[in-house]
């Protein structure tokens, strides 16, 4: 069985990489398997984790026998979960063309809740917290800053400031304002460059992992 498993895994791995040469039946086969398997994987996982694990076990928890021999729930039943089930059911009404429009209600609920929830979340943790962290003494009394720190602090303050100026939509980027926006773009580019560097690092590691599978686990060539 282990041999079959290794060969199946290797066949699929190489099939995906054959796409690098060109689109071909081998890749198409792997792609079709991938789409089917992954859709099924999430289908099964969401069912067991969310519908069974979250909803069903939440409303009807398992029981266990405690130290004194009583039969007790492992957790308290949470009947609020039924609201979620109702929303989910309304969503499924889309399958009935005549009353499919009802599915807009749960959708409206989700969009509304997402909007409200993230409005406040992003405002507090991204705007407030980041502004708080950016406002700091660049140097000064009672703050024992080295030259390294001072330069760093100035860079952070200037970078954040000008970066934000770049995102102004209602003012033309001209003159001093345009100059600041341009400095802002410079900082954004350095950020992208750093992100790029780290991404290369990450992707190469993944490929190393795959190649280790091919040459090590599968072919056993690595000494």
């Amino acid at each position, binding site marked *: 069985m282990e041999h079959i498993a290794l060969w199946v895994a290797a066949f699929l791995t190489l099939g995906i990489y054959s796409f*690098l040469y060109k689109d071909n039946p081998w890749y198409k086969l792997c792609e079709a398997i991938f789409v089917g398997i992954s859709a099924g994987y999430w289908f099964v996982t969401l069912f067991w984790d969310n519908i069974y694990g979250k909803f069903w076990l939440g409303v009807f928890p398992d029981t266990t026998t405690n130290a004194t021999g009583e039969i007790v729930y492992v957790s308290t039943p949470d009947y609020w979960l039924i609201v979620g089930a109702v929303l989910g059911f309304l969503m499924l009404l889309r399958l009935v063309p005549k009353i499919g429009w009802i599915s807009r209600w749960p959708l409206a609920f989700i969009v509304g809740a997402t909007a409200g929830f993230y409005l406040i979340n992003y405002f507090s943790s991204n705007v407030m917290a980041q502004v708080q962290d950016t406002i700091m003494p660049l140097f000064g009394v009672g703050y024992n800053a080295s030259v390294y720190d001072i330069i760093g602090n100035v860079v952070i303050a200037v970078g954040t400031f000008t970066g934000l100026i770049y995102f102004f939509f209602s003012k033309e980027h001209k003159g001093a304002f345009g100059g600041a926006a341009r400095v802002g773009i410079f900082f954004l580019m350095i950020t992208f460059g750093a992100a790029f560097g*780290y991404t290369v*690092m990450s992707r190469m590691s993944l490929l190393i992992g795959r190649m280790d599978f091919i040459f090590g686990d599968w072919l056993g060539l690595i000494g």
Partner: protein
Amino acid sequence: MSTRTKELIVLSIVTVFCIIVYWFKATGRMHGFQFSTGMSIVVSALIFLSLVVVLILTLKGRLIGRRLVFLYVAIGVSLPFFMSITQEIKISPEVQTLYDGLAELPTGSKVLVAFDYDPPSAPELQPMAESLLRYCFNNDLKVVVMGLWPQGPQQANMAIEAAMRDESIASKNLQYGVDWVNLGFQSGNEFVIQRMGSEFKSMFPTDYAGRPYDELELVQNVHNFSNIDYVFNLSAGFPGTIEWVQVAVDRYGVKLGAGNTAVQAPQCYPYLRSGQLIGILGGMNGAAEFELLTGFTGKGTKFMLSQSFAHMIVLSFILIGNVAFIIDRRKKKSPIR
């Protein structure tokens, strides 16, 4: 001969080759091979020379095709597996502070390790997980494992198994439920962390294998984050380190160290600066540095040579592309797209 036939011939040759090699391996006739140091240097020099050829070609105005670039990457990543070249790894400050935070924990401290990744990200994060667990077990720290990603707990079990194979750890005869616990996966992303803030048991009524929480000696008295001495998050995306910082650190004041895929790491640097994270391991490089500090040589160190080669190849391509671009622009005196 049509292209199709050629392709089929190549494919058959490769298949036959693989079958033969596999047969040798399966029957135990071959145990892999390794270049000598001299040979390794020669191979590296050859790769470098061929890159010079690419540069010359590009200068002459012939951009090499995508496929050739792909081939370079494959070779650049694979050949170093067989080379015997050692490189010196330097510890960066963010890795050092992370290690220091771990080292100052007294024996018996409880470390919560959140495994928030799945197999595709394992090449970067598994080495970190293994050296972390080895360190904890060797230094008698108690480990509580959980996952916000469905596959996290399996990755944890794999890492624990790997650590247990160490003689020094195997001889300690560590017990499940006493020295370590795997609480399993819970869906709900950052909300899981938030609810753990009031009661762990509400999120994990049973452990990975279905044992009730209260029957696990290690966590019987662990109610929330105040009973945990150190949290380590291994993260490949959402939910991950950012969520742990925003909820566990900001709201419940835990001490948090993180191991991230390199892609995630830059977004976590602002938190490092503000002290919300005590340290960070970024990608395979971070894993290798951590292995060096904890004193276990694993896959992170082993693959750093491949990583170095891969970076050099990508950088060479950027350079070649740009040299050609600049020369081309000088010739035409007009910018091209």
